[in-house]
């Protein structure tokens, strides 16, 4: 923690994490772990450290206060996690061990690992031997697939239904779409634009969309397709991604007269 009265200008709240089990500021991760809403065993602490180092590199300077705070917290987390990984008071016991006792403990673990590797081989062989026995898994015949009235017990609570109805009555929160720009361009508008250009006889597609945004380009293409379908224009593209030349046809002249 930073010393009282001297809050560091840059707090660990700025350390944004993106881990498998958690995304958000480091502070919040700590809170959630302390409230046991996140299982510390599932948290990859190495990733937290790497994020911190990246964070330092990006800042280009070592803030000693911040570094101390981080070290204290990550050490506490590491200790807590290693305790969780050991059952009961084993950690304390282990730290008190003399070297020869520690060696005995290690031997015990090696033997256990050996034992379960042997058991694993046994199970694998057993499964292979059992493979040729297959079991039937078929849906029940229709008449047997439902409970019959005389044998039916009341097993479903009616509240299950009202809860479902209550959930269905809930209106979803309004989605904020203010960040999506509304389309300012209409097909009619682009049709008029393209028809105006067609009066010249022919034009390049690029000229029809000079300075236009992607939506406008798409709508313009759509307008061209519409006119092409009606036989008012013909277009040529010599090679892929090459220039598109649009030319009026006889019918477009008639169309122009009609719309004039």
């Amino acid at each position, binding site marked *: 923690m930073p010393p009282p009265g001297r809050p560091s200008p840059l707090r660990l709240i700025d350390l944004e994490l993106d881990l498998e089990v958690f995304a958000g500021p480091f502070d919040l991760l700590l809170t959630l772990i302390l409230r046991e809403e996140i299982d510390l065993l599932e948290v990859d602490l190495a990733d937290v450290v790497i994020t911190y180092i990246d964070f330092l590199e990006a800042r280009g300077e070592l803030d000693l206060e911040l570094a101390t705070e981080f070290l204290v917290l990550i050490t506490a987390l590491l200790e807590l996690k290693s305790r969780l990984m050991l059952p009961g008071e084993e950690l304390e016991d282990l730290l008190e061990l003399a070297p020869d006792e520690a060696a005995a403990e290690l031997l015990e673990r090696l033997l256990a690992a050996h034992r379960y590797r042997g058991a694993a081989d046994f199970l694998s062989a057993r499964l292979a031997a059992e493979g040729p026995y297959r079991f039937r898994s078929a849906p*029940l015949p229709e008449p*047997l697939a*439902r409970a*019959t009235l005389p044998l039916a017990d009341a097993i*479903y609570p009616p509240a299950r239904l009202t809860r479902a109805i209550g959930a269905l009555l809930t*209106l979803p929160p309004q989605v904020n779409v203010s960040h999506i720009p509304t389309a300012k361009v209409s097909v009619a508008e682009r049709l008029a634009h393209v028809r105006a250009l067609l009066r010249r006889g022919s034009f390049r597609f690029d000229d029809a969309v000079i300075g236009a945004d992607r939506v406008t380009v798409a709508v313009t293409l759509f307008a061209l397709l519409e006119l092409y379908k009606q036989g008012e224009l013909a277009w040529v593209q010599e090679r892929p991604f090459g220039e598109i030349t649009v030319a009026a046809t006889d019918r477009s002249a008639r169309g122009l007269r009609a719309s004039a």
Partner: protein
Amino acid sequence: MSLVRDVEALLFLSSDPLDLAVIAEACEAEPDAIAAALTELAHGYRQRDAGIVLRELAGGWVLASHPDAEAAARRLLAKPRTPPLSGAQAETLAIVAYLQPVSRPEIGRIRGVNAESATQTLLERGLIEEAGRSQFGASLYRTTELFLKLFGLGSLADLPDPSAFDPAPEVEEELRERLLAAGEARRGDRATDSTPPADALSG
């Protein structure tokens, strides 16, 4: 003879009827030999009054349990036939219960997602049944007597008042209209049928 054994094993493992040619190919034998094996099997089942019978259906040959064993089967299966309801099933069933008769498209509109699979399961389990057709030709559904019994209800009038779970009691529209309006609003949000975990008894 081992061909009869193989044929019996295949029939035992397959829940769908097996075509003679399909059995022949799997057993690497001639269709005639398979036909003879089938005859021998059927004869054996009849002779020893087995709990299994061999039946020839449209699609081929299939094993089934003996019809006389049905009473015992019902006693065995009475309980497993009432598995917990999934979220989708509970929603669909609630809509049918409160709005019956109601059509499948309407259920889908309220839930915001297709109700086909949930409706099918509820039909198979006998919790809902068809109740005629709407003016547009869609099947209408209502709950069954079995539904009342499984939920411990004397009649539909005993269904709990939904206003207890009502998030907006001040809205005085009919339940059907409010469900449809909420479904309409939800439609964009729920592209897929995300079923919440089953919890029939936890309510």
